């Protein structure tokens, strides 16, 4: 069946590639924090040891077991040397146990909020981030492409307004737009709440009170990311459409007397496909930018979780969040990859040739 | 010396890629090129003639078979520069043959780096002038000019001027006429003849136009899908083609004196 179906074979090939990328990301996630001079685990251990009470000892024991830092005996007790120091496991062994736990979905326990599992912290934050970023990026991408296409086609006044504006907006760092909005609309004009994700008076639940307050808090972070995405995408789309308008097939279509709007659809569609690939590549950067926006607005998503974790040296939470974000970006990339293959006959033909 | 062999190819092939994806560009080809002879490699696009020419130039290596130059394997001299002192080339697209960041003259002068003993600066200038005059260009005309300031025909002649400087034993001319206007093709061919007559050069002329090949060459090799399908003296090949490919190539030339195409002939898909 695989032999017969180049598309399916291509999809499986890409899936395998992304899985390898995922493994690399996991490796990076494990080793990078251990490269530096300030190994956060040691720092935390030093802090817990300082108390030397029974409670601290117990906590330390838990950490060591949890993160596979020390050798344990058959009963699961940490093996110690004569002076009470735990016997540390090698980095390689630590990595193997980390890999095993990660693949099972176990991201460890938070230092700061011990013994709360990292996965629980993420479970609280993730919906906020997803609800904020997914629609914003997709919607912004669509609107940006539409504006860019219009600017390229209409040229004239339309282009002279949209293009520099888009250039300005896309050059402004995401956090600056956020800061401006918080300051003007949140604090000076008080149109929208400056920070937070929902009213302090409500608790997250599917109640109409909570939902309406969440929607109210949603407006500003949404707009600030949206504007940036629109700006960047419209610039890319504009130059793609201008390029397409100069191609042989457009000239030929004009010579055939094909209707103007039909030809426009041709160019839009063909310009859109590379934009889609561009979206995949830009996702990483967009997600990063959006994390900062969350921090500006103190929005209760992954960005805030990371910030809190960084401030408190809560190393398991940092790596857990970064890993999750990486996985999201990889999944998004993979989807776009497949989608482009399905939509573009040129790429499909190239894929078929490649996998023959 | 006229019967001496310049090139000898014994069963050479060139395969690109490997496994299922492999493409055989040149398929088990045997031929020889005699001294002071113009031979033409003729065939449709994709027949392998350019790859073959690149092997003669030592820019590609055969995947199998033996290629001799002057009786010795082409790679016998370790330094390929020794080969390029004796075998040179002009290419198809004169516009992409020159580096647009340097003047034409300085690029012609860079040919002297191939010389084992570099002439004095004064002599270099003089020899560049001579080479330009050999292709009918006044040195003043191109003084200080960059490639994009010249026409296609002029640029193609610049490539030939380079050959007049280097005076190699063998010239590989890969489609030198296909990018120039129909009415200046003849002059390019005349310079090739001049190189053969005045500098006793052996010339390998690569083309898809059997008419041009016929006009200029002492022997013809017809290629099709990587194989040599016909060969011989031009008049023999033209009058008594042995392969269907040659017959077809001849038939397809729009000759003014012959019925070439008739209204009302049935149409077959051209694949």
């Amino acid at each position: 069946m695989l032999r017969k179906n180049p598309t399916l074979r291509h999809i499986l090939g890409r899936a395998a590639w992304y899985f390898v990328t995922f493994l690399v990301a996991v490796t990076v996630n494990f080793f990078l924090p251990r490269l530096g001079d300030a190994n956060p685990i040691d720092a935390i251990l030093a802090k817990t040891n300082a108390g030397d009470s029974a409670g601290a000892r117990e906590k330390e024991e838990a950490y060591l077991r949890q993160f596979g830092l020390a050798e344990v005996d058959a009963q699961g007790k940490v093996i110690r040397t004569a002076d009470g120091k735990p016997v540390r496991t090698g980095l390689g062994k630590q990595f193997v146990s980390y890999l095993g736990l990660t693949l099972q979905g176990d991201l460890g326990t938070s230092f700061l909020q011990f013994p709360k599992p990292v996965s629980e912290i993420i479970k609280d934050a993730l919906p906020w981030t997803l609800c904020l970023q997914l629609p914003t990026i997709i919607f912004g991408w669509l609107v940006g492409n539409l504006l860019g296409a219009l600017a390229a086609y209409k040229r004239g006044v339309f282009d002279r307004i949209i293009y520099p504006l888009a250039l300005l907006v896309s050059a402004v760092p995401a956090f600056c737009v956020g800061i401006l909005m918080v300051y003007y609309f949140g604090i000076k004009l008080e149109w929208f709440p400056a920070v937070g994700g929902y009213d302090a008076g409500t608790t997250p639940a599917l109640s109409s009170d909570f939902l309406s307050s969440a929607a109210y808090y949603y407006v500003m972070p949404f707009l600030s990311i949206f504007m940036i995405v629109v700006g960047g995408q419209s610039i890319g789309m504009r130059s793609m459409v201008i390029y397409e308008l100069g191609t042989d097939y457009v000239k030929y279509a004009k010579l055939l007397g094909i209707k103007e709007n039909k030809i426009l659809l041709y160019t839009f569609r063909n310009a859109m496909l590379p934009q889609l690939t561009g979206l995949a590549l830009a996702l990483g950067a967009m997600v990063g930018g959006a994390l900062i926006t969350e921090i500006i607005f103190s929005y209760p998503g992954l960005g805030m979780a990371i910030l809190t974790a960084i401030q408190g040296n809560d190393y398991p939470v940092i790596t857990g969040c970064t890993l999750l974000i990486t996985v999201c970006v990889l999944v998004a990339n993979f989807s776009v990859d497949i989608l482009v293959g399905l939509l573009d006959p040129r790429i499909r033909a190239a894929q078929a040739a490649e996998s023959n | 010396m006229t019967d001496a062999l310049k090139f000898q190819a014994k069963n050479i092939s060139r395969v690109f890629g490997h496994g299922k994806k492999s493409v055989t560009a040149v398929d088990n080809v045997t031929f020889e090129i005699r001294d002071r002879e113009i031979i033409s490699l003729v065939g449709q696009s994709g027949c392998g003639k350019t790859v073959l020419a690149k092997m003669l130039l030592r820019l590609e290596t055969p995947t199998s078979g033996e290629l001799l130059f002057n009786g010795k394997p082409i790679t016998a001299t370790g330094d390929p520069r020794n080969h390029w002192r004796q075998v040179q080339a002009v290419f198809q697209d004169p516009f992409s043959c020159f580096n647009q960041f340097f003047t034409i003259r300085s690029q012609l002068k860079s040919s002297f780096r191939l010389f084992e003993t570099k002439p004095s600066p004064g002599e270099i200038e003089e020899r560049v002038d001579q080479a330009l005059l050999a292709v009918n260009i006044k040195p003043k005309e191109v003084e200080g000019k960059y490639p994009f300031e010249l026409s296609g025909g002029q640029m193609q002649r610049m490539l030939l001027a380079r050959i007049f400087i280097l005076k190699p034993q063998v010239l590989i001319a890969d489609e030198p006429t296909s990018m120039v206007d129909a009415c200046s093709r003849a002059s390019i061919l005349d310079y090739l003849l001049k190189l053969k007559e005045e500098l006793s050069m052996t010339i390998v002329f690569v083309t898809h136009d059997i008419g041009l090949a016929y006009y200029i060459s002492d022997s013809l090799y017809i290629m099709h899908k990587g194989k040599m399908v016909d060969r011989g003296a031009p008049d023999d090949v033209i009058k008594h083609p042995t392969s269907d490919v040659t017959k077809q190539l001849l038939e397809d030339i729009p000759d003014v004196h012959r019925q070439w195409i008739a209204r009302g002939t049935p149409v077959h898909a051209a694949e």
Partner: protein
Amino acid sequence: MTVSAPVRPLEQAASGPTPKPAKSNAVLEVEDLRVHYVTRFGHKIQAVDGVSFSLKQGEILGIAGESGCGKTTLVSGCMGLYIPPLFHTSGDVRIDGKSIVGMTLEQNRKEVLGQKIAMIPQGALNSLNPTRKIKDMAADMILSHDESADKKSINDRLRERFTRIGLDADHVLNSYPVELPAGTKQRCVIGISTLLNPKVVVADEPTSALDVSTQKAVIKLLFELMDQEIISSMLFITHELPLLRHVSSSIAVMYAGEFVEYGTTEQVIFEGRQPYSRALMGSMLSAEPGQKSRKPVAIEGAPPKLDKPIPGCRFAERCPVAQPDCRTTEQVLRIVAGRQVRCKYADTEVVEQVGGGL
């Protein structure tokens, strides 16, 4: 004629290869057409400078000349595609007796392009929209001219037409361009261009990028379309003059925006009376046995730029037999030996020194 140019002897002569068009069967009439474009630096280039001809029902007219002679600008002019930086200076173009000069672009698109006059482009390989199936692009073409056409009838029409031009209609129509070999794509382009049975087909160097075998197949297909009366008359533009021997019934040789010789194919190919057209023929090579001794002579130099008026004969600069007065006297088209020629010495032996003759 509203132009107050010097009276052209041509207008008095009634016996050219194209006598003053009788309304009955002239499909395309071009009358003293002048077209200019403006370069990036603001120079005005008069690329087509007073061209007149008429194309009859069933006729193929070949237009020959080097690159830079104004052939392609003439084509745009004939199709009414005056899109800046290309501008109509003066003169008229009539298709079926109706002037297409001065139409709006939309009107031109709807009534003229593809319907009355259609183009077969030079690089057919990149001419099809890469992300649209052949049938959809062909349907777009039909729908753009006839909004009421329904899907079923379009489909039937396409299948019938593509089968007729020797293609596997079911397969080809449902393919994307990338999935088809070059020869088939070429054929599809010709098929789509002629879908609406245009009165005039303009083939602009349709074969120059092809090797000889493919070139022949393309011309065969065009002939068959004519035999089947799908198309009726054709302008065939090329820089290979000898090719026209087999293609067209009459030939106009163009140089520097003007026709320099305009006669029947036999006249121009075998007994040209103008140095440029003779030189063009003389520069060509042939594979015919016995022709090897004939020495082709290249034309040195390049056509003039036309950014300023040229006094005298425009070809004098490169003409091998230019006489002292050629550079000063303006040349007019006149009838010599039954065809139009633009050369003062056309009726003398001077021109016969040019070109080897075939």
